[in-house]
């Protein structure tokens, strides 16, 4: 029997101008990094509200990465400042409730930092993988548990 090694599924929210371009650069430069991320492109890191992150966990994501431009370099000038403030608060709340801190991470990656992007992802996956699949917040699992055996 083939045993499948667990491979975490990471949702990555990348801002269009910096991080997405950085990820693109990592691709064209053939930089190897853990292939676990599924990218969702947003125009700015400030677009990402805690709704998105929680929804990702509800749908079964094992980890969420949010990446934007460096402070001072936001294409919209101030977006990442707001994101920084907002997520400082949110990260604390997530951890307070018992979601492991390794499951959510923010990073600043610029368009020229393809190398850094690869490192960020690999480091993230390395931290998250030992925790195993995320089971606390998946709606489908809870609903499955409610399904009765009997068919009408």
């Amino acid at each position: 029997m083939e045993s499948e090694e667990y491979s975490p599924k990471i949702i990555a929210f990348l801002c269009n101008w910096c991080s997405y371009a950085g990820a693109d650069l990592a691709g064209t430069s053939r930089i190897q990094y853990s292939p676990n991320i599924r990218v969702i492109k947003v125009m700015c890191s400030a677009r990402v509200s805690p709704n998105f992150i929680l929804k990702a966990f509800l749908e079964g994501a094992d980890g969420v990465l949010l990446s934007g431009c460096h402070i001072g370099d936001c294409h919209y000038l101030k977006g990442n400042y707001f994101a920084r403030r907002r997520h400082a608060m949110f990260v604390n709340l997530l951890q307070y409730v018992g979601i492991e801190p390794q499951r959510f991470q923010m990073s600043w990656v610029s368009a020229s930092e393809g190398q850094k992007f690869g490192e960020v992802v690999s480091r993230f996956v390395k931290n998250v993988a030992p925790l195993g699949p995320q089971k606390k917040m998946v709606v489908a699992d809870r609903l499955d548990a409610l399904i009765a055996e009997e068919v009408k």
Partner: protein
Amino acid sequence: MRESLSSGAVRTFIGWEQGSNSFRARPAFFRNPDEADGAIFSPACSPCLVRMVIEDLHYPLDGPDDRRPLGIVVRGCDDKGIIELIKDRRICREDVVIIGVDCPGVVDWKKARGRLENEGISYDDLANGELIWKDRKVALKTSEKEINFNPEKILMNKCLECEGHTPRIYDVLIGEEDKNRNLAQHPKAVLDIEERTPDEKWEFWEDVFSRCIRCFACRNICTYCYCEECAVDPTTLAISEDTSAAEKANRPEWVGRDSTVPSNAVYLMLRAYHGSGRCINCEECDRACPMGLPLRLLNRKVRKDAKTLFDYEAGNRVEDPPLFSHYCDTDPGDFIW
């Protein structure tokens, strides 16, 4: 002890009237000076009246052409709610006429009902007695006796950590101004939870989330929740008669209607998060919850973080900008790679 402002200057005065028994009071709306005799202020007055101001925004108490201000009675804890509403530009200072009162503390019915037998309170006492403050402590006066209560066993949790007995903004103040305003200490219960491991924390919170029935009472009674379309309530939509069916159908649903643990977790966490820098610790959510969930532990955490991370207190000064609508170069950023 009652106001006479009901003569013309104000369209409706929001205060309290006697409720279903001596330990309970409910909000009441006084429109003529004669009705003002029914107004009370006693330890039974636990509902926070600031909510009624928000209700008036969605469901006007008076006709649309009546531009007179609303009157409201405000205790030491409620003034923060008014300040928050002014900050968020939902109302202007001129829209409310405030009577401030000196409040030594109000009762928590959930605590009180467990004490009735111990304190020897008969149902007759409950119906006909009068709850008063004696030397700033709560007592029940009946025709035959007077029962004094231990504050810890009867007052709302927030009253045990009162930040100040009188409000800071008011037009008229009844009672003496409380000069010692202390900030609420970071409650030990929150710190206790912070010390645990993630799995221990989840054990605690999963149990809490599993008991939630998603009645939305905490949201409806909240002094900062005024959104007509709630992000975590798929049953609310801000629509008009012209909204197309396609628009209604394509509304993103962040949380389903189910009340499984993950959905409840998202509901409660997001609501607490939306209260960052806006939660004033009125603890109405805690009081309202029919399942006795310790919601104050979530909202106090958020309030504590606002203070430690950004040195921000909700309801402190009207001039403060809302927490997430501005930023600072010194905001913490070590958690970002």
